[in-house]
């Protein structure tokens, strides 16, 4: 079954279109509601940016979608299939790659080993797929055999994105990729993301505090506040909505 899930090429159009569909998702940590009936979709070939202040529930959203945190109610559909209760380990075989906050490199492993872990579940993976990641991020080539803890913040971000791509996902969940990076590097990474999405029909659910950068690259923007969605719209429309920007996005 996992094989068929992997075989689905990016951009496969389904009858209802969305790669990921989240319906009325609620997540609580004890008495605290981190997510309150959140519904959204992420479509192939589009970047959906989830924005909001610290504590708005952005990270909780991604962690619930990928199963790291269990929802109290609601459903998560991946290409129409209910994955709400599926184990975390199975997500990547189903075509969902989640890059957690804080650049989830495995610090003790080398760059190459980190990449190999990303492709482990697929069995034998041809050298050309690794070369493609190194082509996308040439800075990783010379660091190939260095432990990942020697990398700079930007290089780590490149490594985790490259590693996620080796899983050949149909949807990529990215948690705060811009955190702590120089604006130039952020622009570079977002630009590359845009290219990948346009070229391969990848679907991206991007969580960002850096709303300005995120909206500049995204197709759709979703604004979260205290676990609830307060706005969903075209990225350009959101960018133009000054009241909303001042109220929730801080610019």
């Amino acid at each position, binding site marked *: 079954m996992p094989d068929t899930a992997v075989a689905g090429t990016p951009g496969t159009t389904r009858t209802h279109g969305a790669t990921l569909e989240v319906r009325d998702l609620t997540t609580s940590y004890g008495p605290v509601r981190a997510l309150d009936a959140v519904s959204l979709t992420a479509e192939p070939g589009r970047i959906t940016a989830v924005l909001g202040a610290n504590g708005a529930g952005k990270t909780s959203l991604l962690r619930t979608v990928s199963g790291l945190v269990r929802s109290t109610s609601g459903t998560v559909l991946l290409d129409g299939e209910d994955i709400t209760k599926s184990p*975390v380990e199975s997500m990547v075989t189903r075509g969902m790659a989640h890059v957690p906050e*804080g650049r*989830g490199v495995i610090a003790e492993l080398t760059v190459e080993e980190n990449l*190999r*872990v990303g492709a*482990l579940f697929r069995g034998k993976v041809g050298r050309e797929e690794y070369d493609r990641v190194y082509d996308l991020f040439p800075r990783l080539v010379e660091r190939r055999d260095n432990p990942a803890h020697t990398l700079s913040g930007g290089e780590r971000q490149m490594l985790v994105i490259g590693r996620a791509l080796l899983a050949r996902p149909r949807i990529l969940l990215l948690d705060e990729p811009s955190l702590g990076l120089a604006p130039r590097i952020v622009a570079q990474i977002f630009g590359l993301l845009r290219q990948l999405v346009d070229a391969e029909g990848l679907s991206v659910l991007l969580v960002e505090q850096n709303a300005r950068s995120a909206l500049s690259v995204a197709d759709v923007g979703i604004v979260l506040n205290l676990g609830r969605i307060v706005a969903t719209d075209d990225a350009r429309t959101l960018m133009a909505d000054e009241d909303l920007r001042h109220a929730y996005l801080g610019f």
Partner: protein
Amino acid sequence: MQQFIDTTLSGLAQGMVFAAFALALVLIWRSTRIVNFAQGSMAMATTFVALALVHAGWNYWLAFVVALVSGFVLGAVVERVIIRRVEGGPELNAVIVTLGLFVAIQAAVAIIAGSSFQSFPAPFGLRGFTIGGNTIALTPNRVFVIVAVLVTMGLLVALFRFTRVGLAMRAAAFGQEVARLLGVRVGRMLTLGWALAAVVGSLAGLLIAGGSFVYPAYMDSLIVFGFVAAVLGGLDSPIGAVVGGLVLGLALAYVSAYFGGSSVVNLAALVILVVVLLVRPGGLFASTQARRA
């Protein structure tokens, strides 16, 4: 000169066993951040499995292999059934649970097999080789001990460095959450890690038992030495465990031969531990880099 060479040789052989035991502790510490105080009694239990089979008329090597396999199963069962419940919880819980296991296994073996001393066969001769008319302290059995530990270490290195399952185990050990997101079945890898560690611990138990006596508490001193060796090496480093084991084996052999005999060996081990921790708190092989997930 003869005495020095003999002391060095017996220290090396002892050190190899310490190294194996320390390696087992390090394997578990690295993957689950638990110090397995039950390691010694688990190894003792599997040695008794071997002894029972030898008494039943089995070939030594067959009993040896079955004991290692039973170590694998015991390690896996202990992790899956007992340790899984305290993993990721407060550290003290794991300490108490492994200490409890240590006592429980020892008591269980004493009930089943009795607590009297029983002699355990050695697979090879216990008489030293003769070189130029002198008999040295290197016996065929000690050669076997050294070779067995070296081969085991080589296999472990190969497993972790060159195989997919080894890579998955390292990923699971160093970045549990990330590994799960990448599709690594972390629970399975932790079970496998405990199982392998128990095999290595069992090997140490079988090797130190060879040509000697076994009883339910015969591993107790090895637990202390193995733990000191592991901490000397930094507790996180397999190579450190091996070097720590050898350093400790040699140091204790010299102490025993030149400074007051075997009665001060235990004391010496703890003095070495304290001195190393004072000078290099992270152990001899601690990486200077702090862990970051």
